[in-house]
């Protein structure tokens, strides 16, 4: 019989006790064959583990539940032991990894809730819906915790622009991210876009959401209390993305297009209603615990809520609102239909909560209750179709210490060994028009980046700046990684990704507070890939410790490879920083004529793994620039101080493309030119295009105090020249018109997307 919310606790115990006898498990379901087990992505030894755990063979539904809970995506079985090494604590950290999103305090009783998550495989299969549902998923992670989303970012990696699939993927992914975020009503304010043939068969779509909550009104997944109603909220359940979770951890073969799961379709309208309804019942104090339904929706959310609370969960699938008829227990437990939540409700608030959801036109159904048995019991058609030990489902998931290969790091390239193929001026013109360095306006103009009226700095600078409520505080947000560095030297590359995010936040004047990561790699069962992962994580951890920049949330996406060809190691870092005065946020644009231009940091002319070396010399060689974390900290602190004290008028960190590209971006952003004088000693191409780290370009009207500040801080400060005119005029080089550089900078992406290149 079906359970009704009206059950007495006693009778529930009896039923669960009954259910625990194996005989209660019905089986008008497919037999569990080795093939079926393999199809579920479970290795034979993992299946053995299941048999030992249960003392019997699992039912079909139970097999599905295990496959969902124990796949890479949900169990982090390959990455767990390494993620544990990351620093996650700081006085301002309220909640580190392990919940739906990380939480940090920013004073005034306010907390920032944020996380980044990948939707790589779904986006490759159906770019618009894949990217859209990726945004929807990360937004739910944030508002599940009681935070109202205030900004989104997205980090995108696509294949070679000339690969036949690339253009359609870019168009679909960007439209999907915009289509969801714009309709939901959150500004999408930052991110990155790169192109490399190594992403030909696996594009990366990493979406980050940031929300604002009151410190004392944050909600968690941990269920408490026995006999509490478990409520299903949001949209109805369909056969969407069944096996999505298992799929998301399966390496692509040539037949990827065949074994595609039913595609999930995003419904931003329902998500917006779900947001408003959830925040309303949270404010009314109806909620004990809440968990969004993401990968393997009902299964993961129910198990997580129970396991975290040391409680059992009894679900009755006959109560689940379904979109389609005749859905099996297996399908309901594994469905990835979007815009759904599971909640443990205060019993006395049930009617109030239901009324709120009805008002918003959303489904609301009591589908089960918490039990004292620590078992996960699922009934369908009155019969028990799953009865599993709830803690073990998570805790006993396999954990692998996979073998990994140390990478032989490459030698440092000597700049003098690299012949400049073209003059400096020609090189700059080429670089600014490259897919990786050109303006991404075509992308971010498809995102509503002004809604909510708090966008202080729009896309186009180093970090987006979002005012908090009516101010005066503001958040700085950025997403960064340099995959070509990570491949050449995963440890230095991991450090660099964190350092660049920290730098971008400092460049707008923000104090970096914490980060979220999205670790995208190939097949971890290959030692060289596992080696990349391990060393990147080591590098990230080292940088986080050195910069007091803890990791509070993150996501791992493995098996990003096709026919044995892996993506570049891509550990995307999403950084969050705080400004006390949004009015003081610094921008990259030159402000007026005749201001002094200085370079902060040391330039050795490091061309190894630079964009210059790759795209102008056609060489992908050498060690990437080393990251001196102590210097990063000194230099960033200096820049932040200069901004706070109003001593400088513009700031821009130096990253891809090197110093002259950074200077050109500052000129293009303002229409004001510059007269530049390279110091002697370093080959000019290495000086202008080397990618040494820990560097910023600043402009000032008050050179003297700036020079003194740098001296006392022991930070190298190099005069480069002055702003002014309409040209980038370098002593001894062909002068370049800023408006012409701007045209080149803006031209490539629109032309490419129009099919003109």
């Amino acid at each position: 019989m079906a359970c009704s919310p009206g059950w007495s606790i006693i009778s529930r115990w009896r039923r669960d006790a009954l259910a625990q006898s194996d005989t209660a498990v019905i089986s008008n379901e497919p037999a569990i064959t080795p093939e079926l087990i393999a199809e579920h992505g479970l290795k034979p030894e993992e299946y053995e583990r299941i048999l030992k755990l249960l003392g019997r063979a699992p039912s079909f539904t139970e097999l599905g539940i295990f496959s969902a809970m124990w796949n890479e995506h949900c169990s982090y079985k390959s990455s767990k032991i390494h993620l544990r090494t990351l620093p996650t604590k700081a006085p301002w950290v309220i909640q580190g990894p392990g919940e739906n999103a990380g939480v940090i305090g920013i004073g005034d009783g306010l907390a920032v809730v944020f996380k980044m998550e990948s939707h790589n495989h779904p986006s490759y299969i159906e770019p618009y819906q894949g990217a859209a549902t990726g945004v929807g998923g990360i937004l739910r992670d944030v508002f599940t915790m009681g935070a109202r989303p205030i900004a989104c970012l997205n980090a995108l990696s696509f294949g070679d622009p000339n690969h036949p699939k690339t253009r359609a993927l870019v168009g679909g992914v960007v439209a999907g991210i915009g289509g969801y975020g714009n309709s939901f009503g959150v500004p999408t304010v930052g991110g990155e876009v790169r192109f490399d043939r190594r992403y030909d068969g696996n594009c990366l779509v990493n979406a980050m959401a940031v929300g604002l909550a009151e410190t004392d009104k944050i909600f968690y997944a941990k269920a408490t209390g026995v006999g509490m109603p478990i409520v299903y909220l949001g949209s109805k359940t369909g056969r969407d993305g069944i096996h999505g979770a298992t799929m998301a951890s399966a390496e692509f073969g040539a037949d990827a297009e065949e074994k595609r799961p039913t595609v999930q379709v995003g419904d931003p309208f329902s998500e917006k209603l779900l947001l408003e309804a959830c925040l309303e019942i949270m404010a009314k104090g109806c909620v004990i615990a809440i968990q969004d339904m993401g990968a393997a929706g009902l299964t993961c959310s129910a198990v997580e809520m129970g396991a975290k609370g040391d409680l059992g969960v009894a679900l009755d699938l006959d109560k689940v609102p379904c979109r389609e008829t005749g859905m099996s227990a297996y399908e309901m437990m594994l469905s990835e239909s979007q815009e759904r939540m599971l909640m443990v409700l205060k019993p006395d608030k049930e009617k109030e909560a239901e009324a709120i959801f009805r008002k918003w036109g959303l489904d609301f159904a009591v589908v089960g209750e918490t039990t004292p048995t620590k078992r996960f019991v699922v009934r369908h058609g009155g019969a028990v179709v799953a009865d599993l030990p709830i803690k073990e489902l998570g805790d006993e998931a396999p954990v692998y210490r996979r073998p990994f290969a140390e990478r032989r790091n490459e030698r440092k390239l000597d700049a003098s060994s690299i012949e400049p193929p073209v003059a400096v001026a020609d090189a700059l013109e080429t670089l600014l028009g490259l897919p990786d360095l050109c303006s991404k306006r075509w992308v971010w103009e498809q995102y509503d980046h002004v809604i909510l009226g708090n966008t202080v700095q729009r896309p186009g600078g180093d970090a987006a700046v979002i005012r908090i409520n009516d101010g005066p505080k503001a958040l700085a947000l950025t997403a960064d990684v340099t995959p070509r560095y990570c491949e050449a030297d995963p440890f230095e590359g991991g450090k660099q990704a964190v350092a660049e995010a920290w730098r971008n936040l400092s460049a707008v004047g923000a104090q970096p507070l914490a980060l979220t990561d999205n670790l995208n790699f190939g097949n971890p069962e290959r030692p060289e890939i596992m080696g990349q992962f391990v060393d990147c994580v080591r590098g990230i951890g080292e940088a986080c410790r050195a910069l007091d920049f803890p990791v509070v949330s993150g996501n791992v996406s493995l098996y990003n490879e096709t026919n044995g060809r892996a993506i570049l190691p891509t550990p995307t870092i999403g950084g969050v920083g705080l400004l006390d005065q949004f009015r003081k946020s610094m921008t990259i644009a030159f402000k007026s004529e005749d201001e002094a231009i200085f370079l902060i940091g040391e330039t050795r002319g490091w061309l190894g793994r630079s964009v210059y070396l790759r795209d102008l010399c056609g060489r992908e060689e050498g060690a990437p620039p080393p990251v001196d974390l102590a210097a990063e900290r000194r230099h960033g602190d200096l820049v932040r101080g200069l901004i706070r004290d109003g001593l400088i008028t513009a700031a821009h960190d130096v990253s891809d493309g090197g110093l002259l590209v950074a200077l050109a971006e500052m000129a293009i952003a303002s229409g004001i030119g510059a007269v530049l004088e390279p110091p002697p000693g370093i080959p000019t191409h290495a000086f202008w295009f080397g990618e040494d780290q820990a560097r910023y370009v600043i402009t000032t009207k008050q050179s003297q105090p700036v020079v003194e500040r740098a001296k006392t801080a022991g930070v190298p400060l190099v005069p480069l020249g002055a702003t002014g005119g309409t040209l980038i005029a370098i002593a001894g080089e062909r002068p370049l018109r800023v408006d012409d550089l701007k045209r080149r900078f803006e031209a490539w992406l629109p032309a490419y997307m129009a099919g003109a290149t």
Partner: protein
Amino acid sequence: MKARVTVTLKSGILDPQGKAIEGALRSLGVGGVTSVRQGKVFDIEIEGADRAGAEAALKSAAEKLLANTVIENYRIELH
């Protein structure tokens, strides 16, 4: 030649639009509607009288552009 290509969502694929329209019709007091699924039609004119050629062109149009065959089916009618 005139042709019509009709593109509809595969069954089982969520149709948020249809769902919203269903609700709206209900609140507008339009009785008895139990399900709405939305699709697209493309009315296309093709020059030349060669039916086979036209059909081939329409098929590739549908496959390459008009339908997203991951989630949609299409039908071609040539008048």
